[in-house]
């Protein structure tokens, strides 16, 4: 076991990634990133939603109802990717025993759950005028609903365990089991739906997008990502403070001493 340790570079020459794996080093970095990301989110969202609502043309088939896409699609992307990120950081925490990756995993969950909820909610608002129903048991809708349940289960487990070490590791295991299951769930739901009825509503059947629509969508997606990053980092800072409350570096922070 000791031989593996010699492969790590000497302390002073630690690569950047390792340096910022320490909560004490990452906390101020996150503090600098949060306002920048929030500012980027405001600008990009204003740009994306501005283009989407004011500039982009009306859709030939769906009229103006389609414009909810500028909220719906970014939320869906965030909901899916954040779950994978959660499982990834849980796995990193498992392998390397780094505290910060577990904290990041915890910080990601509420943002992912919120995005999944937002995706479902906007999907319902979109479905009503275009499909004539608030909810359709389409494969995609159903898998996002199950994704929301996975997030909620993860958060329920986290809040039920008082010991942070156990909560971290149990949460990481659950996220990994969930991540392995997600493709199976998605496939099974698709199978289930196509068996009952040929899917009458397909997202992919929409005409290809006008350039203005695409630009609006891209900007609002980037803005939503910046917002997600900022809120995750903000939550992460709170978790770091909570967990490391006894550490000397926390006691020396200006916001703590003030």
């Amino acid at each position, binding site marked *: 076991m000791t031989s593996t340790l010699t492969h790590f570079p000497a302390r002073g020459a630690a690569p950047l990634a390792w340096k910022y794996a320490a909560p004490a080093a990452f906390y101020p970095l996150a503090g600098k990133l949060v306002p920048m990301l929030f500012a980027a989110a405001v600008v990009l969202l204003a740009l994306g939603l501005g283009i989407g609502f004011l500039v982009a043309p009306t859709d030939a088939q769906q009229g103006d109802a389609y414009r909810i896409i500028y909220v719906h699609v970014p939320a869906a992307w965030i909901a899916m990717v954040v779950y994978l990120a959660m499982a990834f950081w849980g796995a990193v925490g498992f392998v390397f025993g780094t505290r910060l990756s577990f904290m990041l995993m915890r910080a990601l969950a509420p943002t992912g759950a919120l995005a999944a909820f937002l995706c479902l909610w906007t999907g319902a608002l979109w479905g009503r005028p275009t499909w004539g129903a608030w909810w359709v048991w389409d494969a995609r809708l159903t898998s996002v609903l*199950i994704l929301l*349940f*996975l997030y*909620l*289960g993860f958060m*329920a*487990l986290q809040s*039920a*365990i008082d010991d942070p*070490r*156990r909560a971290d*590791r*149990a949460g990481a*295991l*659950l996220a*990994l*089991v*969930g991540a*392995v*299951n997600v493709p*199976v*769930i998605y*496939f*099974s*739901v698709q*199978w*289930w739906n196509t*068996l009952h009825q040929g899917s009458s509503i397909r997202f992919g059947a929409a005409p290809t997008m006008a350039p203005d629509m695409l630009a609006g969508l891209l900007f609002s997606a980037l803005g939503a990502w910046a917002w997600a990053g900022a809120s995750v980092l903000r939550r992460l800072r709170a978790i770091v403070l909570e967990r490391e409350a006894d550490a000397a570096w926390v006691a020396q922070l200006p916001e703590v001493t003030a």
Partner: protein
Amino acid sequence: MLNAFLCVIRRDLLLAFRRQSDAFAALLFFVIAAALFPLGVGPEPAQLRAMAPGVLWVAALFSSMLSLNRLFASDHADGTLEQLLLCAEPLVVIVAAKTVAHWLVAGLPIVLLAPVLGLLFDLAPDAIGVLVASLLIGTPVLSLLGAIGGALTLGLRGGGVLVSLLVLPLQVPVLVFGAGAVGAQTSGLGASAHLLLLGGVLMFAAVLAPWATAAALRIALD
């Protein structure tokens, strides 16, 4: 290793035999839950026939949730679980044995009882055969995945509800393929595709779930 495997199964079965009321309660829940559906939706035979696979599968799913708490909790309470973790045999083998024992107590009776309930729902004989086959392949997956949840929530407050929150979303594929198999049979498509996929899910779970459960137990008793 095989010796330890059989030993743990024997022990768990013996314990279940000595405390029969637990196993019967979960089974009774399965029967009552399934029998309540016709009262809720009306006695129309065609409707019942269409609903039967889903209703029976969901009832089986819920009844398996009820018994998950028992899987490790009583061993945890009297300290047996710590001894099992300390013993020289691989924990995965012990976990697999406990899962098999859990299925024998909680899953197999449901499989055996399903044909009777199928008759209550006016299912055709071939559909009942497929229902039993799908439950036979599917209920072990419920035990395997449920064991992960049972281990993760070991000793937590509100563990009973929590375990359902964690495990039920993961059981969706089993429900889809299991109930879908019967639906496919009655609609004339043939159930083999569903049953094969269900068998694939079972293989997948049998290979991976005991490891995850063992890891979860080590986390819980760290």
